[in-house]
């Protein structure tokens, strides 16, 4: 994929989970590196508030050359997010948000969503690994 995504922060964390074979819903999350966090700021392109996984496509614009990249974030189920405060009305196309997640291992612009910081500063948790016990 093309380079220079506007990455706010990339930090290596300790091993978040002892188990790596977590298949929280309809698919495994083995493709995501749970030892890393990545934070991306961009504009919401798509917000699918549906089961089995809520998903967000975030368009990130490189200020240097205005090149845009779509980032794909996979979250927990509707119910899983509702209990942490998410609603269908939480995001709409064009909203600027900051998303944090575990990046996909192969380097494509994607991640499992852990949390979101909305434009007004509100932080909503969304980590499917953390809230799958609901």
């Amino acid at each position: 994929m093309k380079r220079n995504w506007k990455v706010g922060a990339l930090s290596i964390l300790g091993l978040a989970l002892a188990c790596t074979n977590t298949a929280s819903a309809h698919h495994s999350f083995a493709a995501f590196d749970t030892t890393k966090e990545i934070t991306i700021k961009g504009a919401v392109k798509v917000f699918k508030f549906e089961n089995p996984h809520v998903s967000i496509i975030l368009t990130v614009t490189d200020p240097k050359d205005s090149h845009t990249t779509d980032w794909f974030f996979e979250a927990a189920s509707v119910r899983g997010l509702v209990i942490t405060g998410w609603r269908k009305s939480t995001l709409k196309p064009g909203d600027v948000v900051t998303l944090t997640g575990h990046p996909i291992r192969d380097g494509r612009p994607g991640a499992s969503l852990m949390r979101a910081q909305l434009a007004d500063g509100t932080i909503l948790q969304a980590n499917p690994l953390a809230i799958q016990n609901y």
Partner: protein
Amino acid sequence: MNRNSRLQGTGGWAASRARVCSICVIGALASAMPGWAFAAGDEKLPQIPPSTIVPGQPLGALSKENLAKHRLKAPFDLTGNWMFSPAMNAENGMFDYLPAPKLTPAAKAIYDASIAAMTSGKNYKNDEALCWPAGMPESMTRVWPNQTIQLPTVIIMTQMLKHEIRWIYLDGRPHGDPDIKPPSYSGDSIGHFEGDTLVVETVNLQPKRHWIMTGIPAGPKLKIVEKIKLKGGGKILEDTFTMTDPDNWEGEWVNTKYWYRYDDADAEEAFCLPDINDNLLSTRDESNVR
């Protein structure tokens, strides 16, 4: 003014002829439409088709006749929503069934390939993400509630994810004849109570793209015996699986899982739709080894 009111005004022969004609027309229509008949009174009801019972096969588990048969009272009622909890199952493999048994050489080759895939950050034959059923026993360990209804003749379990359904028959029937009952992802489950335990035997499972856990397939000879108990004052469901499949592993593969009674919300719709993976990079081909 309609035809009837006009005829009412004429009286005599004309009215009689009209009534006779009407009866003839209605009779002709009724005879031409074999699906319809007249019940007592004037109410028109559809005719019930003839019985389709196959000789030797059990009466439907939801039939009133079957439900009304005298049976011993079940020692417990599983009716409710049961949530699979990863935290409650951290020591038994969580979604997987660990420790795994000693695999046959053919099965071990598949399992090793799955480990290699996951070690490289890929999913291995992630059929469930492509909308193939999880099937037994994996369908029991999805994180969303398993909506269970227990009747005297059958326990009906519907897993929220993809709405996979299983029927555990309690009415004393034997396993279905595989000659007329094809293999299925939930299999053919027959249950009975032994004291405070529900014992369920499941056979005739569909092996196509069916996995017990990643890297270990559900073969055509798979047999699952479950011992189900209610514990913790009825708030915890314990299910001990004993699985045998000589094609894939040696001896018995035993694993105990736990669920908790979930009263906080109802299950929701969660079909596996054709566009389900449009926004999910982790389920696309690049993230999968086949």
